[in-house]
């Protein structure tokens, strides 16, 4: 039986490292679209890459052949012959795909870590085939030195669960196709119990000066902040939703052991990427803190995570200008002009009144390495 074709936008962590475990090479032929020319050339030159799954404390490998990796805009030739399209390009790049998806007849499965994006894309394109999926997994965009020596394209992933809208259930894969209500529960848990503490751990790791996420968790002070923020998220969801409390506890424990997993080699630079996106009003830091306050939870540890995000200093990051703004603006100006909080908001007052002490607590972490 001939294999079906799969077109994957984005050959990064999820696209390369995790999707082949869900839609396996025995059943699918892979076509990628990738904007990074160096990665694209490497994929086309080698025609094969390895992804390693951490399972029961060991690595299981999967060697993935690909037919072609296209430059964006050059994939038109295969668009009409693929069984499905999967996107993992990141929330900032996703809207640029609108014209491509307008007339797509096959399911477009969006793994963009933002539940609103596929909804907006469906509305803009009037195409009902665009659906949301949650890769409930941590996938690194790199691998250990030994693995990279053998294959420079190697990546490591967890043994996660792929939740996708049941609308796409005709696409055969190792995934859980669920209804939109169940998908919403999974998304709230992912957004607040995974995404929020995950990026906080990365920002704290960046201050400490470590390379991988699990190294952050080895620092007692940082670990306390991550666990504290996770507890705040759990409480906020308990008060604001009817999600089962045992499920929330299970999810939080699962996440903490993920963050501590040294086999994942999850780089701080990947998880901390684009702090302004994560600091947006409805996203995992400011949005999460606002939700806490609306539900009677004081986001004490979350505010330390927010301060760590403000202090993120990486010259290679698209949002590296955050450091100039933090240094040149008064706290009130920074929160108002850059973060978009209003003086009358409770979170504004809380952040301002705790500014100096939180800044000091975060900076003390730089002595922890």
């Amino acid at each position, binding site marked *: 039986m001939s294999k079906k074709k799969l077109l994957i936008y984005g050959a990064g962590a999820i696209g390369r490292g995790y999707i082949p475990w869900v839609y396996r090479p025995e059943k699918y032929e892979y076509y990628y679209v990738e904007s990074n020319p160096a990665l694209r050339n490497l994929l086309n030159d080698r025609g094969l890459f390895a992804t390693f799954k951490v399972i029961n404390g060991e690595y299981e490998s999967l060697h993935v052949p690909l037919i072609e990796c296209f430059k964006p805009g050059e994939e038109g030739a295969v668009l009409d012959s693929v069984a499905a399209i999967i996107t993992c390009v990141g929330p900032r790049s996703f809207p640029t795909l609108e014209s491509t998806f307008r007339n797509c007849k096959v399911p477009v499965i969006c793994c963009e870590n933002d539940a609103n994006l596929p909804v907006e894309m469906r509305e803009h394109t009037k195409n009902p085939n665009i659906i949301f999926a949650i890769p409930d997994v941590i996938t690194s965009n790199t691998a250990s030195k030994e693995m990279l020596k053998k294959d420079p394209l190697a990546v490591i992933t967890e043994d996660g669960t792929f939740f996708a809208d049941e609308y796409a259930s005709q696409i055969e894969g190792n995934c859980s196709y669920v209804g939109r209500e169940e998908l919403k529960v999974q998304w709230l848990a992912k957004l607040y119990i995974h995404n929020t503490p995950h990026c906080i751990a990365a920002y704290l790791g960046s201050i400490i000066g470590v390379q991988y996420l699990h190294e952050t968790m080895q620092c007692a002070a940082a670990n306390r902040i991550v666990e504290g923020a996770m507890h705040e998220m759990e409480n906020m969801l308990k008060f604001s939703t009817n999600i089962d409390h045992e499920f929330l506890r299970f999810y939080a424990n699962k996440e903490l052991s993920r963050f501590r997993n040294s086999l994942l080699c999850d780089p701080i630079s990947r998880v901390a990427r684009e702090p*302004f996106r994560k600091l947006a009003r409805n996203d995992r830091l400011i949005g999460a803190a606002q939700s806490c306050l609306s539900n009677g939870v004081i986001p004490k540890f979350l505010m330390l995570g927010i301060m760590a995000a403000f202090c993120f200093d990486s010259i290679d990051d698209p*949002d590296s200008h955050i450091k100039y703004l933090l*240094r*040149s*603006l*008064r706290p009130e*100006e920074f929160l108002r*002009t*850059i973060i978009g909080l209003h003086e009358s908001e409770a979170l504004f007052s809380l952040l301002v009144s705790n500014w100096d002490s939180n800044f000091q607590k975060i900076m003390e972490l730089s002595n922890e390495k």
Partner: protein
Amino acid sequence: MKNEKLLEAAIKAAMKAGKCLMDHYEKRVLTSSKESLRDVASLVDKNAELEVFKILHEFNPSLPILSEEHVFQGVDCGLGYWVVDALDGTVNYLNEVPFFSVSISFVEQARTKVGVVYAPLMDDIYYAAEGIGAFKNQCKLKTSDRSPNNSLFSTSFSGKNYQPLGREEEFLVFGRVNDMSRGCLRTGSAALNLAYLAEGRFNGCWGKANKEWDISAGLLIAKLSGAMVGVIRCKSEGYLYHYVAAPPQNFTWLQQHIETLFPEDDWVSVS
């Protein structure tokens, strides 16, 4: 001098001046007319400028400052100099038209290294530095490259007393560009025109005999956001410049339509 440190000082100074402007906005302020009816100085202008000077001096007292109210303060020792307009769009400010800004740049060896334009009423800060990029608040800036007939342009005229015989041609060119596009605006703040060009709200700008403090910061922000920029210095006065700035599709088109405004015997250098 490191661009990032210069940028931080410029942002700090622009925000301080902006606060000073907002503290007095919609309040009666003393004015005195300068060279024309449009060129009004206010006390607020001067106070805001003093706030800027204070911060820039604290940053490095040896750097001279070129500004609207004081022309050149300090000695040019070759380290570069600040260019300051604490209130660009004074008439708008005085009339409570919400289109005015603070403009601060740093120039070294005839190159603008850093530029900041702050619109206090909108609370939007536009900033750029060589080697760093151009941004508005938290977002990276990018011009919008459209065809001329889908574009909105803006201009800033020369002062009333600058070549009075050439003024009719300025109005004719303004009308021609206005009729061949979505429109052409004369907003009253050249610095904000250029910031809006950088953001993609406007799709091209030009100005005749504009002062260095009005356009220096905005031109860098527009350039680092993807605009093509052409600047020529007026022969008659040291701090006056003609300029055109637009994304690639409009740049040549705009240049061709406005070239009659700038006869060659009126300019001395191109940068």
